[in-house]
Protein backbone atom coordinates (compact mmCIF):
# COMPACT_ATOMS: atom_id res chain seq x y z
CA UNK A 1 0.00 0.00 0.00
CA UNK A 2 1.19 3.48 -0.81
CA UNK A 3 2.47 5.51 2.10
CA UNK A 4 0.04 8.17 3.34
CA UNK A 5 1.00 11.80 2.63
CA UNK A 6 -0.37 12.79 6.01
CA UNK A 7 -1.25 10.45 8.80
CA UNK A 8 -2.94 11.75 11.93
CA UNK A 9 -3.38 9.27 14.73
CA UNK A 10 -5.39 9.93 17.87
CA UNK A 11 -4.27 13.55 17.87
CA UNK A 12 -5.30 15.80 20.76
CA UNK A 13 -4.46 19.36 21.67
CA UNK A 14 -5.36 21.14 24.88
CA UNK A 15 -4.89 24.80 25.65
CA UNK A 16 -5.22 24.82 29.41
CA UNK A 17 -8.67 23.40 30.07
CA UNK A 18 -9.84 24.03 26.51
CA UNK A 19 -9.86 20.93 24.33
CA UNK A 20 -9.04 22.20 20.85
CA UNK A 21 -8.60 18.76 19.29
CA UNK A 22 -10.09 15.61 20.66
CA UNK A 23 -8.48 12.36 19.42
CA UNK A 24 -8.52 13.09 15.72
CA UNK A 25 -7.56 10.31 13.30
CA UNK A 26 -7.41 10.56 9.51
CA UNK A 27 -5.13 9.96 6.54
CA UNK A 28 -4.42 11.96 3.41
CA UNK A 29 -3.40 9.94 0.32
CA UNK A 30 -0.62 11.15 -1.95
CA UNK A 31 -1.77 13.33 -4.82
CA UNK A 32 -5.24 14.10 -3.54
CA UNK A 33 -6.91 17.32 -2.47
CA UNK A 34 -8.09 16.70 1.02
CA UNK A 35 -10.53 19.05 2.73
CA UNK A 36 -10.71 19.75 6.42
CA UNK A 37 -14.15 21.17 6.86
CA UNK A 38 -15.72 22.83 9.83
CA UNK A 39 -17.04 26.07 11.27
CA UNK A 40 -15.00 28.77 13.00
CA UNK A 41 -13.27 27.42 16.08
CA UNK A 42 -13.69 23.79 15.08
CA UNK A 43 -9.95 23.17 15.38
CA UNK A 44 -8.97 23.20 11.70
CA UNK A 45 -6.19 25.75 12.10
CA UNK A 46 -4.85 23.88 15.13
CA UNK A 47 -4.51 20.76 12.97
CA UNK A 48 -2.69 22.75 10.31
CA UNK A 49 -0.33 24.32 12.85
CA UNK A 50 0.54 20.93 14.31
CA UNK A 51 1.15 19.39 10.88
CA UNK A 52 3.36 22.32 9.84
CA UNK A 53 5.46 21.93 13.06
CA UNK A 54 4.36 25.28 14.49
CA UNK A 55 2.51 23.68 17.43
CA UNK A 56 3.22 20.51 19.37
CA UNK A 57 0.36 18.08 19.97
CA UNK A 58 -0.70 17.34 23.55
CA UNK A 59 -1.25 13.66 22.77
CA UNK A 60 -1.28 11.31 19.80
CA UNK A 61 0.97 11.59 16.77
CA UNK A 62 1.10 12.97 13.29
CA UNK A 63 3.33 12.11 10.35
CA UNK A 64 3.97 14.07 7.18
CA UNK A 65 5.35 11.98 4.28
CA UNK A 66 6.57 9.45 6.81
CA UNK A 67 8.22 11.94 9.17
CA UNK A 68 7.03 12.58 12.70
CA UNK A 69 6.06 16.25 13.06
CA UNK A 70 7.66 16.54 16.50
CA UNK A 71 10.77 14.35 16.34
CA UNK A 72 11.59 15.06 12.69
CA UNK A 73 10.30 18.62 12.46
CA UNK A 74 13.29 19.77 10.40
CA UNK A 75 12.71 17.07 7.80
CA UNK A 76 8.98 17.90 7.66
CA UNK A 77 9.73 21.60 7.06
CA UNK A 78 11.74 20.67 3.96
CA UNK A 79 8.76 18.91 2.43
CA UNK A 80 5.87 21.30 3.01
CA UNK A 81 4.54 24.64 1.89
CA UNK A 82 2.14 26.68 4.00
CA UNK A 83 -0.23 29.42 2.97
CA UNK A 84 -2.11 30.79 5.94
CA UNK A 85 -5.43 32.51 6.24
CA UNK A 86 -3.55 35.68 7.02
CA UNK A 87 -1.57 36.76 3.99
CA UNK A 88 1.80 36.13 5.60
CA UNK A 89 3.99 38.09 3.26
CA UNK A 90 6.10 41.13 4.10
CA UNK A 91 4.18 44.26 3.09
CA UNK A 92 7.35 46.33 2.72
CA UNK A 93 9.05 43.99 0.27
CA UNK A 94 8.03 43.70 -3.36
CA UNK A 95 6.34 40.53 -4.54
CA UNK A 96 9.58 39.40 -6.15
CA UNK A 97 11.63 40.14 -3.01
CA UNK A 98 9.17 38.18 -0.89
CA UNK A 99 9.54 35.11 -3.08
CA UNK A 100 13.31 35.43 -3.18
CA UNK A 101 13.43 35.71 0.62
CA UNK A 102 11.40 32.52 0.96
CA UNK A 103 13.68 30.92 -1.63
CA UNK A 104 16.79 31.79 0.37
CA UNK A 105 15.22 30.64 3.64
CA UNK A 106 14.09 27.40 1.98
CA UNK A 107 17.74 26.80 1.09
CA UNK A 108 17.23 26.82 -2.65
CA UNK A 109 20.41 26.95 -4.68
CA UNK A 110 21.10 30.62 -5.43
CA UNK A 111 21.02 30.10 -9.18
CA UNK A 112 17.49 28.66 -8.95
CA UNK A 113 15.91 31.39 -6.83
CA UNK A 114 15.57 34.11 -9.49
CA UNK A 115 14.04 31.97 -12.23
CA UNK A 116 11.77 30.25 -9.72
CA UNK A 117 10.47 33.61 -8.42
CA UNK A 118 9.87 34.91 -11.95
CA UNK A 119 8.08 31.75 -13.01
CA UNK A 120 5.76 31.84 -10.00
CA UNK A 121 5.00 35.54 -10.45
CA UNK A 122 4.07 34.79 -14.04
CA UNK A 123 1.97 31.78 -13.15
CA UNK A 124 0.06 33.72 -10.48
CA UNK A 125 -0.48 36.68 -12.78
CA UNK A 126 1.65 39.02 -10.68
CA UNK A 127 4.37 39.90 -13.18
CA UNK A 128 3.12 43.45 -13.69
CA UNK A 129 3.09 44.09 -9.92
CA UNK A 130 6.23 42.08 -9.18
CA UNK A 131 8.42 45.05 -8.31
CA UNK A 132 5.90 47.02 -6.27
CA UNK A 133 5.81 46.79 -2.47
CA UNK A 134 3.17 44.30 -1.39
CA UNK A 135 1.37 46.92 0.71
CA UNK A 136 0.06 48.34 -2.58
CA UNK A 137 -1.49 44.97 -3.55
CA UNK A 138 -5.19 44.13 -3.44
CA UNK A 139 -6.43 41.37 -1.13
CA UNK A 140 -6.62 38.89 -4.00
CA UNK A 141 -3.09 39.69 -5.17
CA UNK A 142 -1.71 39.26 -1.65
CA UNK A 143 -3.42 35.92 -1.34
CA UNK A 144 -2.02 34.75 -4.67
CA UNK A 145 1.45 35.85 -3.58
CA UNK A 146 0.95 34.00 -0.31
CA UNK A 147 0.15 30.77 -2.16
CA UNK A 148 3.05 31.42 -4.55
CA UNK A 149 5.36 31.81 -1.54
CA UNK A 150 4.23 28.41 -0.29
CA UNK A 151 5.25 26.91 -3.65
CA UNK A 152 8.74 28.40 -3.95
CA UNK A 153 10.51 25.22 -2.86
CA UNK A 154 8.17 22.99 -4.93
CA UNK A 155 6.97 21.12 -1.88
CA UNK A 156 5.28 17.78 -2.54
CA UNK A 157 2.73 18.65 0.16
CA UNK A 158 0.90 21.95 0.35
CA UNK A 159 -1.13 23.22 3.32
CA UNK A 160 -3.74 25.85 2.52
CA UNK A 161 -5.47 27.31 5.55
CA UNK A 162 -8.72 28.89 4.37
CA UNK A 163 -7.18 29.96 1.10
CA UNK A 164 -10.07 32.02 -0.20
CA UNK A 165 -11.65 33.55 2.90
CA UNK A 166 -12.44 37.18 2.29
CA UNK A 167 -11.85 37.04 -1.46
CA UNK A 168 -14.26 38.26 -4.14
CA UNK A 169 -15.81 35.59 -6.40
CA UNK A 170 -13.47 36.28 -9.31
CA UNK A 171 -10.30 35.97 -7.20
CA UNK A 172 -11.72 32.90 -5.52
CA UNK A 173 -12.38 31.17 -8.83
CA UNK A 174 -8.91 32.08 -10.07
CA UNK A 175 -7.36 30.57 -6.94
CA UNK A 176 -9.47 27.43 -7.22
CA UNK A 177 -8.28 27.05 -10.80
CA UNK A 178 -4.65 27.32 -9.63
CA UNK A 179 -5.18 24.76 -6.90
CA UNK A 180 -6.64 22.34 -9.46
CA UNK A 181 -3.59 22.84 -11.68
CA UNK A 182 -1.31 22.08 -8.77
CA UNK A 183 -3.04 18.81 -8.15
CA UNK A 184 -2.63 17.80 -11.75
CA UNK A 185 1.11 18.33 -11.17
CA UNK A 186 0.99 15.69 -8.46
CA UNK A 187 1.11 17.96 -5.43
CA UNK A 188 -0.86 16.75 -2.43
CA UNK A 189 -3.03 19.51 -0.99
CA UNK A 190 -4.56 19.67 2.46
CA UNK A 191 -6.93 22.58 2.67
CA UNK A 192 -9.15 23.85 5.43
CA UNK A 193 -12.32 25.67 4.70
CA UNK A 194 -15.52 26.68 6.36
CA UNK A 195 -17.06 27.09 2.94
CA UNK A 196 -18.87 23.95 2.05
CA UNK A 197 -18.97 24.97 -1.58
CA UNK A 198 -15.18 25.17 -1.61
CA UNK A 199 -14.74 21.66 -0.23
CA UNK A 200 -17.36 20.40 -2.67
CA UNK A 201 -15.59 21.99 -5.64
CA UNK A 202 -12.00 21.11 -4.78
CA UNK A 203 -11.69 18.21 -2.42
CA UNK A 204 -11.78 14.55 -3.36
CA UNK A 205 -12.20 13.61 0.27
CA UNK A 206 -13.22 15.58 3.31
CA UNK A 207 -13.21 15.17 7.02
CA UNK A 208 -15.75 17.20 8.92
CA UNK A 209 -14.54 18.57 12.25
CA UNK A 210 -16.73 20.14 14.88
CA UNK A 211 -15.55 21.31 18.30
CA UNK A 212 -12.27 19.44 17.90
CA UNK A 213 -13.89 16.11 17.06
CA UNK A 214 -13.99 14.30 13.76
CA UNK A 215 -17.59 13.69 12.80
CA UNK A 216 -17.24 12.42 9.24
CA UNK A 217 -14.57 11.17 6.83
CA UNK A 218 -15.74 10.54 3.27
CA UNK A 219 -16.03 11.90 -0.25
CA UNK A 220 -18.33 14.89 -0.68
CA UNK A 221 -20.58 12.79 -2.92
CA UNK A 222 -20.83 9.93 -0.44
CA UNK A 223 -21.56 12.33 2.40
CA UNK A 224 -24.41 13.79 0.43
CA UNK A 225 -25.67 10.37 -0.58
CA UNK A 226 -25.60 9.19 3.02
CA UNK A 227 -28.14 11.85 3.82
CA UNK A 228 -30.25 11.46 0.72
CA UNK A 229 -29.23 13.41 -2.29
CA UNK A 230 -32.31 15.58 -2.58
CA UNK A 231 -33.74 18.19 -0.28
CA UNK A 232 -37.33 19.40 -0.37
CA UNK A 233 -37.95 22.82 1.08
CA UNK A 234 -41.44 24.01 1.90
CA UNK A 235 -42.09 27.63 2.75
CA UNK A 236 -45.28 27.65 4.79
CA UNK A 237 -45.45 31.44 5.03
CA UNK A 238 -45.52 31.63 8.82
CA UNK A 239 -44.10 29.70 11.72
CA UNK A 240 -47.40 28.45 13.15
CA UNK A 241 -48.38 26.86 9.86
CA UNK A 242 -44.88 25.36 9.58
CA UNK A 243 -45.23 23.73 13.01
CA UNK A 244 -48.61 22.19 12.09
CA UNK A 245 -47.36 21.02 8.72
CA UNK A 246 -44.26 19.43 10.35
CA UNK A 247 -46.49 17.56 12.80
CA UNK A 248 -48.71 16.31 9.97
CA UNK A 249 -45.79 15.16 7.80
CA UNK A 250 -43.97 13.44 10.62
CA UNK A 251 -47.13 11.87 12.02
CA UNK A 252 -48.62 10.63 8.79
CA UNK A 253 -45.61 10.03 6.52
CA UNK A 254 -42.91 9.28 9.04
CA UNK A 255 -40.51 11.72 7.35
CA UNK A 256 -38.31 13.83 9.62
CA UNK A 257 -38.27 17.54 8.96
CA UNK A 258 -36.08 20.41 10.07
CA UNK A 259 -37.65 23.76 10.75
CA UNK A 260 -36.08 27.12 10.07
CA UNK A 261 -38.56 29.92 10.72
CA UNK A 262 -41.49 29.38 8.37
CA UNK A 263 -39.51 26.88 6.27
CA UNK A 264 -39.41 23.10 6.48
CA UNK A 265 -36.60 21.00 5.06
CA UNK A 266 -36.74 17.29 4.26
CA UNK A 267 -33.68 15.43 3.06
CA UNK A 268 -34.85 12.38 1.11
CA UNK A 269 -33.97 9.84 -1.56
CA UNK A 270 -37.11 9.58 -3.66
CA UNK A 271 -38.12 13.21 -3.81
CA UNK A 272 -40.90 12.70 -6.35
CA UNK A 273 -42.95 10.23 -4.30
CA UNK A 274 -42.35 12.07 -1.03
CA UNK A 275 -43.32 15.40 -2.52
CA UNK A 276 -46.54 13.99 -3.99
CA UNK A 277 -47.45 12.50 -0.63
CA UNK A 278 -46.75 15.72 1.22
CA UNK A 279 -48.67 17.93 -1.14
CA UNK A 280 -51.71 15.66 -1.08
CA UNK A 281 -51.61 15.59 2.69
CA UNK A 282 -51.21 19.32 3.15
CA UNK A 283 -53.87 20.12 0.59
CA UNK A 284 -56.34 17.90 2.42
CA UNK A 285 -55.51 19.80 5.63
CA UNK A 286 -55.89 23.14 3.90
CA UNK A 287 -52.21 24.06 4.46
CA UNK A 288 -50.86 24.57 0.99
CA UNK A 289 -47.24 25.73 1.08
CA UNK A 290 -46.53 29.18 -0.25
CA UNK A 291 -43.47 27.94 -2.11
CA UNK A 292 -41.84 24.56 -2.83
CA UNK A 293 -38.21 23.99 -3.78
CA UNK A 294 -36.58 20.71 -4.71
CA UNK A 295 -32.78 20.77 -4.94
CA UNK A 296 -29.71 18.65 -4.71
CA UNK A 297 -28.42 18.49 -1.14
CA UNK A 298 -25.35 20.60 -0.38
CA UNK A 299 -22.61 19.95 2.13
CA UNK A 300 -24.39 22.55 4.21
CA UNK A 301 -27.27 20.14 4.62
CA UNK A 302 -24.80 17.41 5.47
CA UNK A 303 -23.19 19.57 8.07
CA UNK A 304 -26.53 20.37 9.64
CA UNK A 305 -27.46 16.70 9.75
CA UNK A 306 -24.11 15.69 11.26
CA UNK A 307 -23.70 18.37 13.88
CA UNK A 308 -27.22 19.49 14.61
CA UNK A 309 -26.26 23.07 13.86
CA UNK A 310 -25.51 25.06 10.78
CA UNK A 311 -22.19 26.43 9.73
CA UNK A 312 -22.12 29.90 11.13
CA UNK A 313 -22.97 31.77 7.98
CA UNK A 314 -26.04 29.73 7.14
CA UNK A 315 -26.93 27.97 3.91
CA UNK A 316 -26.48 29.13 0.38
CA UNK A 317 -24.04 31.93 1.08
CA UNK A 318 -20.92 31.74 -1.05
CA UNK A 319 -17.42 32.34 0.28
CA UNK A 320 -17.29 35.79 -1.22
CA UNK A 321 -20.10 37.09 0.91
CA UNK A 322 -18.25 36.72 4.18
CA UNK A 323 -14.84 37.47 5.47
CA UNK A 324 -13.75 34.72 7.76
CA UNK A 325 -10.94 34.45 10.20
CA UNK A 326 -10.55 31.96 12.92
Amino acid sequence: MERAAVSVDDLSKHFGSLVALDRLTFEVRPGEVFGLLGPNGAGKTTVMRILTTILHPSAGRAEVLGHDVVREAGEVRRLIGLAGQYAAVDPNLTGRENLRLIGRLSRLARSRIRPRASALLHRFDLTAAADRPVRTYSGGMRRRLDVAAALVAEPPLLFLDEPTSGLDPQSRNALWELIRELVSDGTTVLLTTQYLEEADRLAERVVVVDQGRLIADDTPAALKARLGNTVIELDMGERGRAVRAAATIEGRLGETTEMDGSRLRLPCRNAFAVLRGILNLLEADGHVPRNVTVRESSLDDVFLALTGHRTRAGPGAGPATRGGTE
Partner: protein
Amino acid sequence: MTTTTTGRPLSAERPSSRIAATVRDGSAVAWRNLIALRRVPRLLVFSTVQPLVFVLMFRYVFGGVVSPSLPPGVSYVDFLIPGIFVQTAVFGSMNTAIGLATDMQTGLMERFRSLPMARSAVLVGRTTADLARNVFVVTLMTAVGFALGFRIHAGVPAFLGGVLLVLAFGFAMSWIFAVVGMGVGDPETAQAAAFPVLAPLVFASSAFVPVATMPGWLQAFANHQPVSQTAEAVRTLVLGGPATGDVWQALVWDAGIVAVFAPLGVWFYRRVV
Protein backbone atom coordinates in the same frame (compact mmCIF):
# COMPACT_ATOMS: atom_id res chain seq x y z
CA MET B 1 5.77 25.82 -16.16
CA THR B 2 5.70 22.23 -15.18
CA THR B 3 6.75 21.03 -11.81
CA THR B 4 7.82 17.62 -10.77
CA THR B 5 6.54 17.40 -7.28
CA THR B 6 6.17 13.75 -6.64
CA GLY B 7 9.51 13.22 -4.97
CA ARG B 8 11.85 15.70 -3.37
CA PRO B 9 11.35 19.44 -3.13
CA LEU B 10 13.89 21.93 -4.47
CA SER B 11 15.38 22.68 -1.08
CA ALA B 12 18.28 20.31 -1.32
CA GLU B 13 21.14 22.42 -0.02
CA ARG B 14 22.12 21.81 3.53
CA PRO B 15 24.58 24.15 5.22
CA SER B 16 27.65 22.51 6.64
CA SER B 17 27.03 23.51 10.24
CA ARG B 18 24.58 25.14 12.56
CA ILE B 19 26.65 28.33 12.62
CA ALA B 20 26.77 28.47 8.82
CA ALA B 21 22.99 28.06 8.74
CA THR B 22 22.50 30.84 11.28
CA VAL B 23 24.75 33.22 9.35
CA ARG B 24 23.14 32.42 6.04
CA ASP B 25 19.52 32.60 7.18
CA GLY B 26 20.17 35.45 9.60
CA SER B 27 21.66 37.59 6.84
CA ALA B 28 18.63 36.88 4.62
CA VAL B 29 16.31 38.09 7.38
CA ALA B 30 18.54 41.10 8.13
CA TRP B 31 18.46 42.01 4.44
CA ARG B 32 14.69 41.92 4.54
CA ASN B 33 14.55 44.13 7.64
CA LEU B 34 16.94 46.67 6.15
CA ILE B 35 14.85 46.92 2.98
CA ALA B 36 11.87 47.83 5.16
CA LEU B 37 13.99 50.52 6.82
CA ARG B 38 14.86 52.02 3.45
CA ARG B 39 11.35 51.74 2.07
CA VAL B 40 9.51 53.07 5.11
CA PRO B 41 11.62 56.13 5.92
CA ARG B 42 9.56 57.07 8.95
CA LEU B 43 11.08 54.09 10.78
CA LEU B 44 14.47 55.72 10.41
CA VAL B 45 13.22 59.28 10.92
CA PHE B 46 11.69 58.44 14.28
CA SER B 47 14.86 56.86 15.55
CA THR B 48 16.92 59.90 14.51
CA VAL B 49 14.60 62.76 15.46
CA GLN B 50 14.30 61.64 19.07
CA PRO B 51 18.06 61.75 19.89
CA LEU B 52 18.30 65.00 17.95
CA VAL B 53 15.66 66.58 20.17
CA PHE B 54 17.43 65.19 23.24
CA VAL B 55 20.83 66.54 22.25
CA LEU B 56 19.47 70.03 21.56
CA MET B 57 17.34 70.06 24.68
CA PHE B 58 20.08 68.89 27.04
CA ARG B 59 22.77 71.03 25.42
CA TYR B 60 20.79 74.27 25.61
CA VAL B 61 18.20 73.77 28.36
CA PHE B 62 20.06 71.78 31.02
CA GLY B 63 23.64 72.56 29.97
CA GLY B 64 23.88 75.69 32.12
CA VAL B 65 22.67 73.92 35.25
CA VAL B 66 24.86 70.85 34.81
CA SER B 67 28.11 72.56 33.79
CA PRO B 68 29.18 73.70 37.32
CA SER B 69 29.04 70.11 38.63
CA LEU B 70 31.28 68.74 35.85
CA PRO B 71 34.97 68.03 36.44
CA PRO B 72 37.07 71.11 35.71
CA GLY B 73 37.98 71.62 32.06
CA VAL B 74 35.17 69.40 30.71
CA SER B 75 32.54 71.15 28.60
CA TYR B 76 28.96 69.93 28.82
CA VAL B 77 28.71 69.06 25.12
CA ASP B 78 31.73 66.76 25.45
CA PHE B 79 30.13 65.20 28.52
CA LEU B 80 26.74 64.93 26.83
CA ILE B 81 27.49 63.38 23.41
CA PRO B 82 28.78 60.01 24.76
CA GLY B 83 25.64 59.89 26.93
CA ILE B 84 23.46 60.63 23.92
CA PHE B 85 25.14 57.79 22.01
CA VAL B 86 24.28 55.35 24.76
CA GLN B 87 20.75 56.68 25.14
CA THR B 88 20.22 56.33 21.38
CA ALA B 89 21.34 52.72 21.48
CA VAL B 90 19.10 51.95 24.46
CA PHE B 91 15.93 53.55 23.11
CA GLY B 92 16.67 52.14 19.65
CA SER B 93 16.55 48.62 21.04
CA MET B 94 12.79 49.05 21.52
CA ASN B 95 12.55 48.69 17.75
CA THR B 96 13.69 45.09 18.07
CA ALA B 97 10.66 44.31 20.23
CA ILE B 98 8.30 46.24 17.97
CA GLY B 99 9.63 44.60 14.80
CA LEU B 100 9.38 41.05 16.14
CA ALA B 101 5.96 41.64 17.67
CA THR B 102 4.75 42.98 14.32
CA ASP B 103 5.99 39.84 12.56
CA MET B 104 4.10 37.73 15.07
CA GLN B 105 0.93 39.72 14.56
CA THR B 106 1.00 39.61 10.76
CA GLY B 107 1.54 35.86 10.64
CA LEU B 108 4.95 36.15 8.98
CA MET B 109 6.45 34.44 12.04
CA GLU B 110 4.22 31.41 11.39
CA ARG B 111 5.61 31.13 7.90
CA PHE B 112 9.18 31.44 9.17
CA ARG B 113 8.50 28.71 11.70
CA SER B 114 7.29 26.38 8.96
CA LEU B 115 10.45 26.92 6.86
CA PRO B 116 13.58 24.77 7.13
CA MET B 117 15.61 27.74 8.38
CA ALA B 118 17.81 28.08 11.46
CA ARG B 119 15.72 28.58 14.60
CA SER B 120 17.81 31.56 15.65
CA ALA B 121 17.74 33.30 12.25
CA VAL B 122 14.68 35.48 12.73
CA LEU B 123 16.12 36.94 15.94
CA VAL B 124 19.68 37.21 14.64
CA GLY B 125 18.39 38.92 11.49
CA ARG B 126 16.39 41.40 13.52
CA THR B 127 19.12 42.31 16.02
CA THR B 128 21.68 42.57 13.20
CA ALA B 129 19.46 44.93 11.21
CA ASP B 130 18.94 47.02 14.35
CA LEU B 131 22.69 47.10 14.82
CA ALA B 132 23.07 48.46 11.28
CA ARG B 133 20.47 51.11 12.04
CA ASN B 134 22.43 52.10 15.15
CA VAL B 135 25.56 52.55 13.04
CA PHE B 136 23.66 55.04 10.93
CA VAL B 137 22.14 56.91 13.87
CA VAL B 138 25.42 57.12 15.83
CA THR B 139 27.21 58.43 12.75
CA LEU B 140 24.55 61.08 12.35
CA MET B 141 24.70 62.04 16.03
CA THR B 142 28.49 62.37 15.78
CA ALA B 143 28.04 64.89 12.96
CA VAL B 144 25.41 66.76 14.95
CA GLY B 145 27.69 66.72 17.99
CA PHE B 146 30.53 68.23 16.01
CA ALA B 147 28.24 70.99 14.78
CA LEU B 148 27.35 71.79 18.41
CA GLY B 149 30.98 71.99 19.57
CA PHE B 150 31.75 68.39 20.53
CA ARG B 151 35.44 67.50 20.10
CA ILE B 152 37.48 64.28 20.37
CA HIS B 153 40.17 64.64 23.04
CA ALA B 154 41.90 61.28 23.11
CA GLY B 155 42.44 60.49 19.45
CA VAL B 156 40.32 58.92 16.72
CA PRO B 157 41.11 55.25 17.51
CA ALA B 158 39.89 55.66 21.10
CA PHE B 159 36.78 57.48 19.85
CA LEU B 160 36.04 54.66 17.38
CA GLY B 161 36.55 52.21 20.21
CA GLY B 162 33.92 54.15 22.13
CA VAL B 163 31.53 53.95 19.17
CA LEU B 164 32.04 50.16 19.00
CA LEU B 165 31.26 49.94 22.69
CA VAL B 166 28.01 51.85 22.12
CA LEU B 167 27.09 49.51 19.27
CA ALA B 168 27.88 46.44 21.37
CA PHE B 169 25.66 47.76 24.14
CA GLY B 170 22.83 48.51 21.68
CA PHE B 171 23.17 44.98 20.30
CA ALA B 172 22.98 43.49 23.80
CA MET B 173 19.91 45.59 24.63
CA SER B 174 18.29 44.39 21.37
CA TRP B 175 18.43 40.83 22.70
CA ILE B 176 16.57 41.89 25.84
CA PHE B 177 13.89 43.43 23.67
CA ALA B 178 13.83 40.46 21.34
CA VAL B 179 12.63 38.48 24.35
CA VAL B 180 10.13 41.22 25.24
CA GLY B 181 8.79 41.28 21.66
CA MET B 182 8.43 37.49 21.49
CA GLY B 183 6.84 37.45 24.92
CA VAL B 184 4.15 40.09 24.41
CA GLY B 185 3.43 39.43 20.74
CA ASP B 186 1.90 42.77 19.74
CA PRO B 187 3.72 46.00 18.89
CA GLU B 188 1.66 48.40 21.01
CA THR B 189 2.13 46.36 24.18
CA ALA B 190 5.83 45.97 23.39
CA GLN B 191 6.23 49.72 23.20
CA ALA B 192 4.16 50.35 26.31
CA ALA B 193 6.09 47.74 28.27
CA ALA B 194 9.48 49.06 27.20
CA PHE B 195 9.31 52.70 28.18
CA PRO B 196 8.81 52.39 31.97
CA VAL B 197 11.82 50.07 32.08
CA LEU B 198 14.05 52.12 29.82
CA ALA B 199 13.33 55.61 31.16
CA PRO B 200 14.76 55.01 34.68
CA LEU B 201 17.72 53.13 33.20
CA VAL B 202 18.58 56.06 30.96
CA PHE B 203 17.75 58.98 33.28
CA ALA B 204 18.96 57.52 36.56
CA SER B 205 22.39 57.13 35.02
CA SER B 206 25.43 59.19 34.20
CA ALA B 207 24.26 59.57 30.58
CA PHE B 208 23.17 63.20 30.92
CA VAL B 209 24.25 64.39 34.37
CA PRO B 210 27.06 63.46 36.79
CA VAL B 211 25.84 60.86 39.25
CA ALA B 212 27.31 62.88 42.13
CA THR B 213 24.36 65.31 41.98
CA MET B 214 21.87 62.52 42.83
CA PRO B 215 20.73 61.46 46.32
CA GLY B 216 22.82 58.71 47.87
CA TRP B 217 20.35 55.84 47.46
CA LEU B 218 19.97 56.66 43.78
CA GLN B 219 23.72 56.91 43.28
CA ALA B 220 24.04 53.33 44.45
CA PHE B 221 21.77 52.24 41.60
CA ALA B 222 23.06 54.76 39.05
CA ASN B 223 26.71 53.84 39.56
CA HIS B 224 26.21 50.13 39.04
CA GLN B 225 23.81 49.84 36.14
CA PRO B 226 24.94 49.15 32.57
CA VAL B 227 23.86 52.46 31.02
CA SER B 228 26.09 54.42 33.41
CA GLN B 229 28.97 52.02 33.07
CA THR B 230 28.82 52.09 29.28
CA ALA B 231 28.44 55.90 29.24
CA GLU B 232 31.43 56.24 31.60
CA ALA B 233 33.55 53.93 29.46
CA VAL B 234 32.68 55.77 26.24
CA ARG B 235 33.25 59.12 27.93
CA THR B 236 36.68 58.12 29.14
CA LEU B 237 37.56 56.90 25.65
CA VAL B 238 36.49 60.26 24.19
CA LEU B 239 37.81 62.62 26.86
CA GLY B 240 40.95 60.69 27.75
CA GLY B 241 42.05 58.99 30.94
CA PRO B 242 42.49 55.40 32.10
CA ALA B 243 39.65 53.60 30.33
CA THR B 244 40.51 49.91 30.66
CA GLY B 245 38.54 49.20 33.83
CA ASP B 246 35.38 50.97 32.58
CA VAL B 247 35.61 49.30 29.18
CA TRP B 248 35.93 45.84 30.70
CA GLN B 249 32.96 46.43 32.96
CA ALA B 250 30.85 47.55 30.02
CA LEU B 251 31.92 44.53 27.94
CA VAL B 252 31.10 42.16 30.78
CA TRP B 253 27.61 43.64 30.92
CA ASP B 254 27.18 43.18 27.15
CA ALA B 255 28.44 39.60 27.20
CA GLY B 256 26.29 38.77 30.21
CA ILE B 257 23.14 40.21 28.67
CA VAL B 258 23.63 38.36 25.37
CA ALA B 259 24.50 35.12 27.16
CA VAL B 260 21.22 35.22 29.06
CA PHE B 261 18.80 36.77 26.59
CA ALA B 262 19.89 35.24 23.27
CA PRO B 263 19.12 31.64 24.34
CA LEU B 264 15.96 32.87 26.06
CA GLY B 265 14.84 34.60 22.85
CA VAL B 266 15.47 31.50 20.76
CA TRP B 267 13.62 29.44 23.35
CA PHE B 268 10.64 31.79 22.98
CA TYR B 269 10.84 31.42 19.19
CA ARG B 270 10.97 27.64 19.35
CA ARG B 271 8.36 27.43 22.07
CA VAL B 272 5.44 25.81 20.44
CA VAL B 273 2.72 26.27 23.04
